[in-house]
């Protein structure tokens, strides 16, 4: 391999047929005279368009129907074939290393005549990156088959986004991250839209996994209920205002009712209903308050029975060595879902503000379905100061605004084939447009492009490792359930 040319932040490398390359692979260009090397990443390849190639190919094609015999005593045909199949590897310059240290790429160019170009493994790459942590989380293997791990410390205090088309492997990656965090004693809160994260507790064979004791599934209305007093006035106001859209005048009456109940020591659902019914106020206000009250009741999140209520602090306290609380949202209506998420998140922040909880990793799948947009920004800009470190999982890249992408520390990008989706992600991602566009389009299932702090800002393609727990989201199919009972019928 040889350097062919450089244009902007791109290095073109000439490669002859015979050497296999994969998009995302790293290469080093070593200039021994300067004791410096350049690290480049292959993002695309093309044929070398040397002069006359097109005429050659056209001629080959013209005579493909003839029986063509060649007498080539000097075996120059093989040289011709090499020229025809020669490739140009389009690489992005990632960094420059001088005397073993990563230095800014300040326009230094390696010698085109004497530099050597060779492949570079991720282990060598990670030595250059120099991570700040030691708690490894195995994600899978890199394109050249080496094991690929990240450090849990690089997820700590960070905002992560996992995105890609459906069935690309996003949930699998999310579960890998969660299991890795659990291995290192972290506390994780998961909003589980499809009820699939419970699989963390199950082995692939259907038995109990090693995480079984550190995973708890909280089902609203079953084992996730809070008392009205526990939630408190601030959270109730939040829910009424942001989810149930209570107007200002009604809200004022509600606050007066709450204060009254608090003074009289009767902050219960029953007393709240009774007080609303007897409260001296406009009839419309009363009706509005009652309708919101019944909405609250329908969420099944609040209970007066002290035997059936819990607190977030208690739940986390039972997981001394770390654990995951999975709030399952499957089978819950959209309005109730929003009320549950809003209440849990508000209470979580409340606890963190009061320092009654340790920092928590939050994983939210398809969060746009249950989280209002303003809350997203809040999560990112404010909550990390309290100790909520979010990971969003979505197959709709446009559901996440560009302002959020810009603040993301790590992005795990899976395959997208839709041009618009790729552009959306590429523009907002933390690396160059060409790399994202070219690599993401061709990623196979379970392969992702990892960008950000976890890879020292050097994008890496990773094939996710298989897990010993149930990690795949399942699709309920029609035909698989009928396949045994009804034989296939030939259609015309």
């Amino acid at each position, binding site marked *: 391999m040889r350097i062919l040319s450089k244009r902007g932040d791109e290095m073109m490398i000439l490669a002859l047929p015979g050497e296999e390359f994969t998009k995302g692979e790293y290469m080093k260009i070593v200039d021994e005279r300067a004791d410096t090397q350049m690290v480049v990443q292959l993002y695309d390849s093309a044929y070398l368009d*040397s*002069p*006359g*190639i097109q*005429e*050659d190919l056209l*001629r080959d094609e*013209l*005579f493909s*129907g*003839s*029986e*063509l*015999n*060649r*007498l*080539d*005593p*000097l075996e*120059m045909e093989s*040289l*011709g074939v090499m*020229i*025809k199949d020669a490739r140009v590897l389009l690489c992005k310059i990632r960094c420059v290393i001088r005397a073993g240290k990563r230095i800014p790429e300040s326009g230094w160019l390696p010698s085109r005549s004497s530099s050597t170009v060779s492949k570079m493994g991720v282990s060598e790459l990670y030595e250059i990156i120099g991570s700040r942590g030691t708690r490894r989380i195995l994600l899978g293997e890199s394109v050249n088959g080496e094991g690929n791990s990240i450090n849990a410390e690089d997820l700590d205090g960070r905002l992560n986004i996992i995105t890609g088309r459906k069935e690309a492997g996003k949930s699998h990656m999310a579960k890998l991250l969660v299991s890795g965090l659990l291995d290192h004693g972290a506390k994780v809160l998961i909003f589980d839209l499809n009820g699939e994260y419970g699989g963390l507790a199950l082995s692939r064979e259907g038995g109990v996994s090693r995480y079984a004791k550190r995973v708890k599934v909280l089902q609203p209305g079953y084992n996730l209920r809070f008392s009205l007093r526990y939630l408190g006035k601030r959270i109730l106001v939040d829910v009424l205002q942001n989810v149930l859209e209570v107007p200002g005048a009604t809200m004022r009456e509600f606050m007066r009712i709450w204060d009254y109940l608090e003074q009289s020591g009767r902050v219960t659902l029953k007393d709240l209903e009774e007080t609303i019914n007897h409260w001296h106020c406009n009839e419309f206000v009363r009706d509005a308050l009652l309708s919101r009250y019944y909405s609250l009741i329908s969420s099944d999140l609040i209970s007066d029975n002290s035997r059936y209520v819990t607190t977030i602090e208690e739940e986390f306290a039972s997981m001394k060595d770390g654990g995951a609380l999975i709030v399952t949202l499957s089978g819950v209506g959209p309005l109730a879902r929003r009320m549950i998420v809003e209440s849990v998140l508000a209470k979580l922040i409340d606890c963190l503000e009061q320092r009654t909880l340790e920092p928590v990793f939050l994983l939210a799948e398809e969060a746009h379905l249950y989280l209002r947009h303003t809350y997203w920004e809040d999560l990112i800009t404010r909550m990390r100061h309290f100790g909520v470190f979010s990971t969003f999982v979505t197959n709709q890249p446009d559901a996440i605004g560009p302002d959020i992408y810009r603040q993301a520390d790590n992005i795990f990008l899976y395959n997208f084939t839709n041009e618009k989706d790729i552009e959306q992600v590429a523009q907002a991602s933390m690396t160059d447009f060409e790399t994202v566009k070219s690599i993401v389009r061709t990623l196979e299932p379970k392969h992702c492009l990892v960008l950000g702090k976890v890879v020292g800002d050097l994008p890496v393609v990773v094939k996710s490792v298989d897990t010993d727990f149930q990690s795949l989201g399942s699709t309920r199919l029609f035909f698989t359930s009928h396949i045994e009972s009804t034989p296939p019928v030939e259609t015309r």
Partner: protein
Amino acid sequence: MILGSSVSEVAQLSLASLSGIRGRRMVLYRNGEEQQPLMGWGSVSAAESSGGSSCVPIPTEGSVKPVSSIDSSVIVLGEVDDGFVMAGKVTVSSRREGKKYAYVFGPSIFYIGESNVAKVNELLSNRLPERFIIHDAAVATRVVRVIMERAAALDVAINMSGGILALDGSLRVSNFEPSRCSLVRIAETCERNGVVLMGVTKNTKLRPLQRLEGKLYKSTRPSFMEVSDVVRSIAPTVLGRSVLARLSSDGVPLRIDILTEEGLEGSLSSLVASDILCHGYPDTLKAAHILSIFSLGEEESAKGRLVRTEGTNVVQSFNVRRALLGKMQLGGRGGN
């Protein structure tokens, strides 16, 4: 004023010469390339004054025979201090029983310099002054081309029976004929094997023949006229009989030298029946031409082979004209 009466005389000559072209038909050359008028040159009377017989229609029911056509090309790859390095290719393109075949020999690299020119000379029927070969790239190229093409033609003639062997260009005996496989020997072998040997010239340089082409354009059918006498008078070493032939009604007239025992009509009708014609030009000849020309990729391959495996030492070079006159190009030509 430096320029005086001598130059004035030249100017007068120029002006006077121009009066001679008034009212004449003219074609303008494009980028130095010779052009032909669409329906040929001159009037019928002019053509008749140039000689040549009358037009004879080519019979449509000719016998189908195997056809093989040969073309070659040689390029100069570089120069060493005592000679030249060339690469050559020769292609035989055939059509037999409706199927197409092609045989390509090369690219082969040849060095002709002081150290081996004597050996090269030994291969030729007529010995040439050695300096003549090693000091002129065009001569060296011609020598290699004739050697390669004749070798291929002899092999085809030996292995063919009762077919047509078409060579690109005339059947003129060259000054560089190789003794072992000269054109005469090829002709003898063809005769022995019942093969019709043809030399097909796309663009004849003989002016009297160009004048006769108009006659063929007037014929609506494929036809030919024998021009052996005209050709012999200008190029006495041409073998066989020569015709100007328009092989298809949409074709251009070609000069074809034919060595045959079955007569001109029979040979030409066989060619028309045996090969596909594109604008009156045999397809096998066209294929041989396309396969024999060097593409830039092949030229680079040959140079790569020279550098990588032949132990040559490539030295820095420069273009004298470019160095002296600069890069400025005004789209003009000439001025060597």
